[in-house]
């Protein structure tokens, strides 16, 4: 595989992409020109405005096809690669037993006003996700699942009470960056409530997180779309029991 690639429409290197967007302008030739201009700024050249549909008196929706000249440098791609071994439940249990000689305590919740529990449940509940059992299945892990719409103070109090080793937080609603605000509030609260060395491991997850933002958000790890329980368990074992 070459390390420099371009988008592929119909032939190697053609650079073809599709875009769509709305501009807050009434439909006209000028509006189509404006769409063309935006496409050009995005790097499409040539850019074909193939569809323009007036939506009421003030907006126009566009579909544009065209060639971008940007190169994608595969070597420069930064991925949060798994930097820990993927373990079986058995291995995770063994590692915890060996290094902690007690059960690992995991506290989970959807914080803020978010009530989407399916994601965190997929990680925590026995039932699990994508054929993998959830953390409740692990003999050496004690799971406390606080459910939906948990406030940050409640979460911190419970973490103290349970002496949680790790706190797992889910955020699905992202409108107006709700997930980022809530995560920052949470990490700040834990920062205040615990001395640095005693703070539980903070893990957040949800389908629209950028996994590279952990540092910025003050948490130890972010898990995105399609995470499986085994990945999370392995990460916990790696960070807390090795």
């Amino acid at each position: 595989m070459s390390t420099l690639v371009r988008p592929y429409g119909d032939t190697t290197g053609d650079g073809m992409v599709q875009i769509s967007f709305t501009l807050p302008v009434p439909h006209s030739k000028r509006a189509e020109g404006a769409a063309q201009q935006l496409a050009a700024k995005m790097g499409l050249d040539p850019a074909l405005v193939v569809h323009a549909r007036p939506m009421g008196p003030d907006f126009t929706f566009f579909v544009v096809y065209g060639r971008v000249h940007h190169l994608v440098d595969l070597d420069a791609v930064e991925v949060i690669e798994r930097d820990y071994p993927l373990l079986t439940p058995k291995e995770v249990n063994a590692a915890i037993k060996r290094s902690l000689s007690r059960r690992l305590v995991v506290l989970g919740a959807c914080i803020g006003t978010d009530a989407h529990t399916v994601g965190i449940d997929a990680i925590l509940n026995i039932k699990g996700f994508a054929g993998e059992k959830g953390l409740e299945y692990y003999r050496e892990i004690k799971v406390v699942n606080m459910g939906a719409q948990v406030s940050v103070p409640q979460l911190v109090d419970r973490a103290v009470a349970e002496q949680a080793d790790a706190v797992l937080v889910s955020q699905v609603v992202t409108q107006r960056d709700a997930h980022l605000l809530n995560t920052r509030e949470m990490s700040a609260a834990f920062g205040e409530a615990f001395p640095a060395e005693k703070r539980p491991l903070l893990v957040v997850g949800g389908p629209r997180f950028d996994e590279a933002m952990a540092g910025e958000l003050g948490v130890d790890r972010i898990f995105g779309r399609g995470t499986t329980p085994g990945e999370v368990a392995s990460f916990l074992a790696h960070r807390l029991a090795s």
Partner: protein
Amino acid sequence: MTGKLDLDPVTVRKARSLARKAGRPIVKLAHQHTTVSVERATLRLAGLSGADSEGTPWANRLLDAVRADVGLEHGVALPVWDALARGEAEDLVTLAQKASAGSVRFDLPEGTRAKRVRAASRRQVGAGIRQIDRRRTERERLIKRHGDAPRAPWIYLIVATGDIYEDIPQAQQAAREGADVIAVIRSTGQSLLDFVPEGATREGFAGTYATQENFRLMRAALDESSKELGRYVRLTNYASGLCMPEIAALAGLERLDMMLNDSMYGILFRDINPVRTFVDQRFSRQVHARAGIIINTGEDNYLTTADAVEAAHTVTTSQLLNEYFAKEAGLEDWQLGLGHAFEIDPAVPESFRLELAHALLARELFPKAPLKWMPPTRHMTGDVFRGYLLDGFFNLVGAMTGQGILLVGMMTEAVVTPWLSDRDLALQNVRYVLDAAGGLREDFHPAPDGLIATRARQVLGETIDLLERIADEGLLDAIADGTFGLMRRPADAGKGLEGVARKAADYYNPASEILEEK
């Protein structure tokens, strides 16, 4: 309309009588209790509005003061109108202000004094209910003037910017493009607030706060649109949550046309205490019945957590329960927007025909109800093209099975709250399907022993089994056991329990009294 499935009328009757059997104890429970929100709704019907400088509504302030002095169990009417009669304040707002400043003490009147107090409260609350009646007449007049939605299903679109002033132009644009019903999605978390926020709001997350002022602004905007478009455009919001009764009252006062109101949604999806929910639900539905509001129930939600094939009968069961509770509260058939959804995994073989079977079953079980048909959400992905196609087939089921209210699916379901262009594209989709293929209903005749009819009978059979179990063990226990949407909700837990009280012997509520009279 009916008859494509050839359902056995005896079985259908049996299902209904089981639902009655399961629901009746709950109605009794509702009769025996009141809640903070029922009482606040009563105050609101009497004209109390506004909030203190921290945003706490006067209704909450006043009720809390009353409760502190005499408890909740007698209802708010006796102590409040007693205080007014004593001349503690010239009106409710002033009373609330004084009460929250601690300068009034509440008492329970007795004997003839109590009689006069009851009458006074009834007069004042009655005025609010007459206002609701006027709103209902107004709606009827406007529908006559502008015309109604041009056809069934009604096309139902959501706006959800979080900012009422962004919502308004989006809603008007949606109406222009063919929406018959506009729903303003509520901010996440509002359903757990034990008060109704005040004023016009611009800071919701993934939805806009339900407030009386937001209701008013949006209804006025849609009245303009109705005029512009020559058809009455309906407005919907959400009742379910900790403030169901109050929101129902405000919706009636501001002429909303539909309300999300489910007998169990709050319990299952917001962990609200079951008793609180059932009491609030009954009162709120009585208000809706009076206001001529169509309710939308929430069975679709079950299928976002449970499997749509395995759990199909829980939807039917819940529909039958919702129907029973609704009718008991005075709602008529045309007001029952019973919910269900296109949520079968599209990878399941024959998924489309299974959807047809479920949708047709609902249609034939509730032939006069304007069923609310919800689009795919759970199996939508970031593949917006695939999503657009699924929505088209969802629309087709809606047309082929004569659904009454079609919630328009968005191709970006798995990505963002809907964009302006998503709505426009979605409406194009609906229009194409209804215009091009709507008539297919005529050509659609499931074979008596084919997949569709067999599946419908199977779901009905499972429904009866489940209703038998529920009628036996009691609905509260069934809910505690995780029967619906896989959620376990015991009757003695959940949010808002502290806002419930068993009525005292002298309990009086003028609103309930008037609403029960009908």
